C-alpha cells in the first residue's frame, strides 16, 4: 500500500515528492535499459558496423545476419584446423551448447525438486520428532558452511565416485582397486551434486509446516494412503512453493558457470554460459584460455571475415536470456504469493 497518505496528495510539497520518486524510478529504468539496448542493437548490426568509432546507437543497416550465423556456423574457427585435437572456438553450431544447457538445467530440476520436496515432507509430516530433529540438522547443516571449502574434494569425487581422493584406493590386502564411477565430462557431474539443495529444503519445509496436521489426519482416518495424501492434498496446496523453487532452481542451473567450467572440459559438453564466456575472451584478446597455443589473432580475423564478432556474441546472449525471461513471466504471479521467506528458524 502507498505510504504517502491519500488525503494530502493534492498538496504541492507532497506532489513534488511523488514527482521526484517517479523521476528517480524512471531514470533508473532508463539506465538499466541501456546495457540491454546496447546488447540488442549490437546483435542486429552487420560485422563492419560493430567496429565503427564512434559506435552507432541506431544501426544503419539492421540485419539478422548474426543470428543466422550463430545458428548455422560450426567447425571452422581454429587456426590449427577445425577437427584437430585442439579445441576450436566454436566447433559446433549453437544448438549444441543450447542443448547442453537445457539438459543440465532440466536434469537438475527433475532430480532436485522431487528429492528435496520428498525429504522436506518426510521431515515435516512423517518422521518421529526425535529423528526429524537430527535429520533436519543433517540436511541444512551444509547451508551454514560456505560451499567453496568442498570445491576441490567434490572435483576429485566426481572423477571417481565415491572416493574423494586423487586416485582410487585399493581394497585392503589385495592389489585390486575399488570399483568407482568416473563422472568427469558427463552431464551427471553437474546434475548429481545439485540434486539436493539445503536452501530449497528449508523453503519446502517452511511451507509444509504450515499445512495443518488435522487435514492429513482426517484423510488418514478416511483411509487414504500416504501417497495419495501427498498427491491429492499436499501437492495442490503447495503449488506456490513448488513454483518458487522451480524458478530458483531453473535460474541457478541455467546460470551456473563455475562448476560446468571445472567438470565439463570438452567443447561438445559446454553449456551456453561457458561458451559465451570463452567467445568473449577470444573477442577481447585475452589468451588465458589457450595457453601455449598461438593463432589467436588469426582466429579472430577469420571470425570477423565471416561477419561474426561481438554481434554474434550479443545474439547468443539474447538467446541465452530468453528462457530466463520466459520463466520469470511464467512464474511471476506465483513468486509474488509463494515466497514469504522466514529466515532460518
Amino acid at each position: 500500500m502507498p505510504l504517502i497518505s491519500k488525503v494530502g496528495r493534492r498538496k504541492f510539497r507532497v506532489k513534488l515528492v511523488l514527482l521526484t520518486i517517479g523521476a528517480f524510478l524512471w531514470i533508473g529504468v532508463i539506465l538499466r535499459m541501456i546495457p540491454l539496448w546496447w546488447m540488442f542493437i549490437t546483435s542486429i548490426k552487420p560485422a563492419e558496423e560493430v567496429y565503427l568509432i564512434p559506435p552507432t546507437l541506431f544501426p544503419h543497416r539492421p540485419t539478422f545476419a548474426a543470428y543466422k550465423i550463430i545458428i548455422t556456423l560450426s567447425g571452422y574457427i581454429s587456426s590449427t584446423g577445425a577437427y584437430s585435437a585442439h579445441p576450436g572456438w566454436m566447433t559446433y553450431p549453437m544448438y549444441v551448447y543450447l542443448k547442453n544447457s537445457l539438459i543440465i538445467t532440466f536434469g537438475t530440476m527433475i532430480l532436485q525438486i522431487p528429492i528435496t520436496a520428498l525429504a522436506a515432507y518426510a521431515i515435516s509430516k512423517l518422521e518421529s520428532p526425535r529423528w526429524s530433529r537430527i535429520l533436519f540438522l543433517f540436511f541444512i547443516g551444509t547451508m551454514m558452511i560456505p560451499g567453496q571449502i568442498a570445491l576441490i574434494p567434490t572435483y576429485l569425487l566426481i572423477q571417481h565416485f565415491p572416493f574423494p581422493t586423487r586416485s582410487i584406493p585399493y581394497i585392503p590386502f589385495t592389489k585390486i582397486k575399488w570399483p568407482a564411477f568416473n563422472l568427469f565430462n558427463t552431464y551427471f557431474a553437474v546434475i548429481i551434486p545439485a540434486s539436493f539443495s539445503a536452501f530449497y529444503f528449508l523453503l519446502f519445509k517452511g511451507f509444509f509446516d504450515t499445512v495443518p496436521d488435522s487435514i492429513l489426519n482426517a484423510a488418514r482416518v478416511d483411509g487414504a494412503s500416504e501417497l495419495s495424501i501427498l498427491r491429492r492434498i499436499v501437492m495442490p496446496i503447495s503449488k506456490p512453493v513448488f513454483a518458487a523453487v522451480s524458478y530458483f532452481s531453473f535460474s541457478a542451473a541455467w546460470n551456473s558457470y563455475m562448476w560446468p567450467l571445472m567438470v565439463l572440459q570438452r567443447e561438445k559438453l559446454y553449456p551456453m554460459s561457458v561458451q559465451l564466456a570463452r567467445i568473449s575472451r577470444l573477442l577481447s584478446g585475452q589468451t588465458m584460455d589457450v595457453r601455449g597455443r598461438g593463432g589467436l589473432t588469426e582466429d579472430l580475423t577469420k571470425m570477423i571475415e565471416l561477419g561474426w564478432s561481438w554481434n554474434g556474441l550479443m545474439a547468443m546472449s539474447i538467446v541465452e536470456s530468453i528462457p530466463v525471461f520466459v520463466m520469470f513471466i511464467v512464474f511471476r504471479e506465483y513468486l509474488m504469493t509463494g515466497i514469504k521467506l522466514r529466515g532460518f528458524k
Partner: protein
Amino acid sequence: MKEKARKESQKRKSRLAKIFMSPAILIQFFFGWLPIGMAFAVCLFHYHVLKPEEYVGLANFQDLFADPLTFQVIKNTFIYTGMSLAIFLLPVIVSILLMEMNKSTIRIMMYLWFFPIASTASIVIWKWMYNTEYGLLNSILMSLGLPTLRWLNDPRLVIFCLILPGILMYGPSLIYLATIQSIPDELYEAAELEGAGFWSKVWHITLPRMRPVLAMMLLLSIIGSMSVFSQPWILTHGGPNNASMMVVMRIVNLAIYNMRYGKGTALAIILFAILMVIIIIQRKYFKEDIDR
C-alpha cells in the same frame, strides 16, 4: 489400545519417511558432508603428478602465507565485498519507492526494474560496454568531451567495474517486493492515525517487518561476494597484474590448472574461516526475528 495404534501408525509413517528421504540422505552425504570433511584432510597433503600423495602437515598453509599473492587476493575480495554491499540496498529502496506509484505503473515498472537476464549474458554485455576502443562507455565519455578511461585495464578501477554487472541481475528483488506487499495495511493505517509521515512509516514499520528477509539476504550476499568467481573470471581473468584476482579464482587456478589440490584446499579453508567469523558476527548482532 489407542496408544498402541498411534504408535503403530507412527512406525508406519516413519518407515515411509525413510524411503522418501533416502535419495536426499545419499546425495547430502556424498556431495554435502563427505567433501567438507575431506577438505580438512586434503589440505594436509601434497599431490605429486606421478607419485602418490605425501603427507606434509601444515606446509600448504606455510606455503600460502609466504606467498604475497594470497594476501592480495584476500584484500581484493574484501574490497569487492565492501563495494557490492553498497548496491545491496538499491533493490530495497526501489521496492519501497515503487509502492508509491499507482497500480498500473507498478506493474510496468516491476518488469522494467526487475526482469532478469542470464547472468553470463549480463557479464558479457558489460565486457562489451567496457571495451576500450569500441565500447559504449568510452564513446559516451568521448562525446561529452571527457578523457576516456581504461576500465578493466586500470588496476585502480577494475574492482569497481566488476560490481556493475550485478545491477543487471535482480533475481532476489521479487522477494523484497513480496515481503513489502505482505505487510498488513492495518499497521500503516494505525500509524497514519497517529500522524506518522512517510519516513517514520518506512523506518518503524516497513524496515522492521523486512528485517528477517534483509538479514538473510545480507548474509547470502556477503557469502556470495566473498566467493565471487564468474564476474572477475569472465571480465578480467584476474588481470591487470592480479588486481582483480579473487580468492575462489585463485583456488580454481591452483587446483584445476596447476594440480595443487592441497594448497588450493588450504586457501579454501582460510576463506571458510573468514566466512565463519563473518557469519557468527552477523548472526549475533543482526537478530532476525522482530518478535523476539
